[in-house]
């Protein structure tokens, strides 16, 4: 008897992905609600689930169009229009799930492991995670303000609400 995964429909009203940028002078958050792709969830055994999601980088909004434009310049969205994540496996250690997979960003693929929480409420599943990436790992030239560069580490927050 094999468990059967179901395709989750992403609720774009409630779901979002954000990044927190930091500079010695100020911090900011850019948010996108344009999460696309597929999410197959296995309710009986979540480690058999899989995700293949992507977000157009143009859709990130930090409420400052000049900063968003600078961000698009440094990540060269005219060559690499999306950031995507495809899972290869899901593991569980001490009540914590981890999704292993490939993060594709700025034309570079890197294998990463993301800690995630799955919460099921009736016909809804909520997946949330927070993790850091280094811009230098993805060969991104950090933008600077008054000659001071922004911090290399960027925190990514992901909150996905799906209808099972």
């Amino acid at each position, binding site marked *: 008897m094999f468990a059967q995964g179901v395709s989750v429909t992403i609720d774009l009203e409630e779901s979002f992905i954000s990044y927190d940028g930091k500079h010695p002078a100020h911090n900011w958050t850019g948010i996108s609600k344009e999460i696309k792709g597929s999410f197959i969830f296995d309710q009986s055994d979540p480690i058999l689930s899989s995700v293949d999601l992507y977000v157009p980088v143009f859709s990130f909004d930090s409420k400052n*169009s000049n900063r968003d434009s600078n961000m698009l310049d440094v990540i060269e969205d005219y060559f690499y229009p999306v950031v995507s994540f495809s899972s290869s496996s899901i593991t569980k250690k001490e009540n914590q799930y981890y999704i292993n997979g490939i993060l594709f960003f700025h034309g570079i693929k890197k294998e990463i492991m993301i800690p995630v929480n799955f919460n099921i409420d009736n016909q809804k599943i909520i997946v949330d995670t927070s993790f850091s990436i280094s811009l230098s790992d993805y060969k991104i030239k950090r933008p600077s303000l008054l*000659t001071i560069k922004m911090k290399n580490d960027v925190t990514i927050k992901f909150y996905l609400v799906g209808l099972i």
Partner: protein
Amino acid sequence: MLSKTKLILLTIFLLSSTIKAQSVVTQEAYDNRFTPPEIGLPDNMPYIKSIIWGKEGVFRKLDIGPDTRIEELKLRREMLKHHQWIGILTLAGLAYQYDVGKKLYDGNDSDYWDKHYDRHKAMGYFTYATYMTGASLSIFAPPARKYDNNFSSIKFHRTMAILHFSAMMAQPFLAKAAVKDGKRYNDLMDAHLKAGTVAFFALSLDALGITFFK
């Protein structure tokens, strides 16, 4: 009958609202997700940018500028980097210029006048040149990817720029007019000092805003 129609319309409305809020990705969009899109001109371009760089803009008609939008964006980035550097240089120059100018205006020390008047004048040319170069780099830079109407540091920067640009434009003319027109010398020098004060403090506030506001 009418209530049935209303019910059908309500059902269609509710269904369409639900569909809008869900992620529906076509196979074609999914397959082409890594294909770079055509980068066009942004919506909501500021008026001055659209006059210069719009589809029917002056630079398009005169065939000035790079051949592709990607090259335009790279050029923009370089121009704005230099705009930042020149802005810092101009602010430092204006701080000195304002200090010397205020002492020349307030003081009765002829030694100080003799030693500093020519320096003040030369610095005036220098800061005017660096300011206008910096402003040109921003005004003539190709348009960005996005423009919005949110109140942000860049909106504050553009608002303050109207103030310090006007003051910087007026300053040398007021000084020259004061030297030429002996009868109105005091009034024109007053105005020159006021323009200098506005230029210096507006530019200082602008630099603080762009640095520390989000």
